């Protein structure tokens, strides 16, 4: 693809055409500035904060480090895709209920990372939760309420499955 070619990205189950973009743009930039999906946030542009976390072909990655044009043909999931009709997932609700949201800038990235963790490990240990979230920086909460939110989801899901 060249400088200003149109390309298509598959996001949250839908096809999104990217037009008038400079080919070197990161997926984060394209999501936010081209496709009207500003849920992923940029706080460092170098993969050190996790605010831009999306799920790409099943992996939780930093979208600031993905060359958007190279993601053609991949499945991309963003925070907007979790609650398309406005009804919150259990993770999202737990974040609210447990006080895990203050300024909220890190929140979408954390929600994606938490969902990804629980999709792959339905009963993570305390350390597994911390390690899974260690790539997401939060400056406001000190993480305590975030852990509480994840724990809440795990125990509710386990209770529900019994």
């Amino acid at each position, binding site marked *: 693809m*060249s400088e200003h070619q149109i390309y298509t990205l598959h996001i949250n189950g839908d096809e999104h055409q990217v037009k008038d973009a400079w080919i070197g743009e*990161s997926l984060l930039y394209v999501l936010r500035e081209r496709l009207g999906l500003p849920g992923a946030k940029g706080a460092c542009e*170098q993969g050190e904060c996790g605010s831009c976390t999306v799920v790409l072909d099943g992996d939780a990655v930093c979208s600031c480090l993905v060359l958007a044009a190279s993601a*053609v043909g991949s499945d991309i999931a963003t925070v907007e895709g979790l609650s398309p009709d406005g009804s919150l997932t259990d993770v999202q609700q737990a974040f609210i209920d447990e006080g895990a949201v203050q300024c909220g800038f890190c929140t979408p990235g954390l929600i994606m990372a938490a969902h990804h963790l629980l999709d792959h490990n339905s009963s993570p240990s305390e350390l597994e939760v911390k390690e899974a979230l260690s790539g997401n920086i939060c400056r406001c909460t000190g993480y305590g309420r975030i852990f509480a939110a994840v724990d809440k989801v795990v125990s509710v899901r386990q209770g529900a499955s019994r």
Partner: protein
Amino acid sequence: MTVLIPNTLDEALAMLSDNPSADLLTGGTDMMVEVNFNHRKPSTVIALRRLTELQSWSIDKEQQRVTIGAGVPYAEMERGPLAETLPCLAEAARTVGSPQIRAAGTLGGNLGTCSPAGDGLPVLSALDATVHLLSPTGERQISFHDFMTGPKRNVRASDEIITAVSMNIPNGWQGYAKVGVRNAMVISVASACLVLDHSVSDTRMVRLALGSVGPTIIRCRETESWWNSVPSTQQTATATIDEFGSRAGDESRPIDDHRSTADYRRHAISVLSRRLLTRGTQS
């Protein structure tokens, strides 16, 4: 700027032939940082994301050899049979960046960049790994020791793609340790990979490689040969292990920078080397 997305390795090679100055992109964890900060403006990028040929690994039990595709993400090296076979690689992989970075970063990327702080590189050095390169004219294999020639310098030709690394499975203990200031997302201040191998001549031989303390990965050959010659009854004596550590420190060539001091890095290498050898000889 042009982005090319080959579907097969052959396609990728052809594209690279046509665009010898192209940047090769897999996980993006190095390149995209440079692009985001305008330190690099690639004119052509060949994205290798779809090349499944690069994304598999194999364990050859007969030959006692492992081959890992250049596109295998670090996350995949952290668990499963690959981790059980090469625990020092699994340990190093676990320290790379964050979970998000580990899902994207690859050994191919580490090798393409050849930063002395590349987390996987001391492992490749200690395991005497072979780097596999492919060009339109054929395959080439080169020892890691000859592949990396300096900070961010290697011998990859512009028409070559790194396809895999391979290494013998050592018969013995192997471990990795990395020092940084915080407890996650750690930029290496100093790192070390130690392997004890009984596979040659039944004698236990040590191999020690250091990261972030020199212009390239440092194999502590003098320290290794010294310890390998110490009578085996003495090898695990406290004084011997202490000396192993300080000799390793002496072989390191660290610098002062905004992350740490040369003195501390040398000291850290001594401590890590000593502790790794202690673990290895006690197991």
